[in-house]
């Protein structure tokens, strides 16, 4: 006999209790601390800050712990928290020209003022599992030297002096705010970059890769990639001048792209740009490639119908919080819709069957 289902409330509570227990795992193993995650899983923390659009390593580490290491879930926690925070104002634009660089490389020039700085990179490591790490290892110690001081000029500026790369006109228009205004098409470059910097790393990587394989190809060189900290300044109306309120670590990537000219633009190099919170190199390079691909219209290039050229396609599908929510909502009950589909399919089958019987009789 059928008894109407009740007790959804208790089932949910129990499921959450189980989840909490699973998150902690066996209690004879030491619990993971927030500071451990922040300092030893810092690239995961960086990704959560970048795609969560909130620069706070402690909160990102907490989110990773709470999400059991599921980074998209952690990003979701950060986004949901972020949206409740009051807005005091906006900072001055950060100046990456005064970045204290941990890493700075150019693929287009062998040497450049300020030099190439590899920094803490996985590049050139041999990807061999280090079994020493599985045992209690000693704390490694790297040699150090005095940091370079002073401004670090952007590589693209050198090309600019010769007029070989497109000029980007200075623009003081406040950029639109994706988190306060609905995304509407057509989106200008500032809005596109804003969407890309918080876009899913995997999606952005896939799109960027597709441009390299010919779907909207525009061959990119990494003109410069730099990672380091920049001061954040904010204008305080009561004081009448801006004060430094803190520092953020950023990854900036400028690509230099081949361009043979179009009906409207002369032959020159063109630019793609990526700027992302934290040490997030793969994401910043991907962002720069996708940014460049999306600029086909303003540069007078042909739209070859490549996915990475399609701003609506890219921007409406790049947000992993939107994507994962909608994808996973199909787990929710759909009895009602399914029932109406059942009725329809039965009806259509019944009629098709009747027709066959009649045709056979004829």
């Amino acid at each position, binding site marked *: 006999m059928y008894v109407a289902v009740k007790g*959804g409330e208790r089932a949910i509570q129990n499921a959450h209790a189980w989840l909490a227990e699973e998150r902690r795992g066996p209690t004879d193993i030491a619990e993971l601390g927030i500071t451990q995650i922040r300092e030893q899983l810092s690239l995961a923390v960086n990704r959560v800050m970048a795609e969560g659009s909130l620069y706070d390593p402690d909160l990102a580490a907490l989110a990773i712990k709470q999400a059991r290491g599921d980074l998209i879930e952690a990003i979701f926690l950060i986004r949901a928290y972020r949206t409740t925070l009051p807005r005091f104002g906006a900072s001055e634009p950060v100046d990456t020209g005064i970045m204290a660089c941990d890493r700075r490389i150019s693929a287009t020039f062998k040497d450049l003022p300020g030099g190439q700085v590899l920094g803490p990179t996985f590049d050139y490591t041999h990807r061999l599992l280090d079994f020493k790490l599985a045992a209690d290892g000693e704390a490694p110690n790297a040699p150090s030297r005095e940091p370079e001081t002073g401004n670090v000029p952007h590589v693209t500026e050198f090309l600019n002096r010769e007029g070989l790369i497109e000029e980007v006109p200075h623009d003081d228009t406040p950029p639109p705010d994706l988190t*306060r205004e609905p995304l509407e098409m057509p989106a200008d470059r500032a809005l596109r970059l804003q969407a890309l910097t918080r876009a899913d790393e995997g999606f952005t990587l896939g799109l960027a890769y597709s441009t390299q394989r010919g779907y909207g190809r525009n061959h990119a060189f990494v003109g410069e990639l730099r990672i380091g900290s920049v001061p954040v300044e904010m204008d305080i109306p009561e004081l009448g001048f801006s004060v430094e309120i803190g520092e953020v670590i950023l990854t900036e990537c400028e690509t230099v792209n081949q361009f043979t000219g179009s009906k409207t633009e002369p032959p020159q190099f063109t630019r793609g740009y990526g700027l992302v919170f934290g040490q997030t190199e793969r994401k910043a390079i991907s962002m720069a490639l996708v940014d460049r691909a999306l600029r086909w219209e303003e540069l007078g290039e042909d739209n070859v119908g490549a996915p990475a050229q399609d701003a609506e396609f890219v921007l*409406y599908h790049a947000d992993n919080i939107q994507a994962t929510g909608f994808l996973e909502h199909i787990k929710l009950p759909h009895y009602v819709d399914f029932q109406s589909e059942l*009725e329809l399919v039965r009806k259509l089958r019944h009629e098709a069957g009747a027709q066959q019987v009649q045709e056979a009789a004829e």
Partner: protein
Amino acid sequence: MTEYNFAYLDEQTKRMIRRAILKGLAIPGYQVPFASREMPMPYGWGTGGVQVSAAVLTPDDTFKVIDQGADDTTNAVSIRTFFQRTAGVVTTTATRDATVIQTRHRIPEEPLHEGQILVYQVPIPEPLRFLEPRESETRKMHSLEEYGLMHVKLYEDISRHGHIATSYAYPVKVEGRYVMDPSPIPKFDNPKLGDMAAIQLFGAGREQRIYALPPYTQVVSLDFEDHPFEASKANHCCGMCGATDSYLDELIIDDAGGRMFVCSDTDYCEARQAMGHKGKDAA
């Protein structure tokens, strides 16, 4: 952070949402873009409805949440708990006692009355989306009232299947102007949309759209003269309360695939049983 604002959202955000709602009510069926916020539940799980409810709820309201017509489905429970916690409002399962009803995929069987607000959770607000994936195009089609594509689609259904092969989220025309997606309610519910005494608000969080039907709005399900719209349901009566006029869920009750039919609207079914109505499967 321990305290959230009444109904979770801050007052600025609620004001922004209320503006969108008012615009929606002024232009029935028109999709108003709004700056949807990240909510503490996933997109696609009712964030649009939750934001609309948060914007219209007052401390004196009585709140009801249904999913698939039922008060006790998991997501309905979750959303109800959310507002109990963040707004402290009284909740109910009785349709007539509620002042705000948030729903997913159903309109309650009992006719709503003036003063009530029905808030729909909407996954894809654009009725033309599966005919034209581009938002920039569909907005143009709405502004030019260019709905030929939709009629062609319905016509093709008829020529291929003999019927319009849309059984839920069946498109409607509002006051002779905008073609609107009524959210994925079964087409059985479509006739209730028009001339309703309550305010109907539709919230799509991920897609950042709000639209609305003020009370007593004309809403017509799209059809053809020779193929008139037909609200359909399973040709059975409720096994528990015997109702013949309610939308039914089909349940599989044994390993042999035995089936029974029950009202999808749990409040309607329970109220009828309390009045002494009995279906053939009732104990």
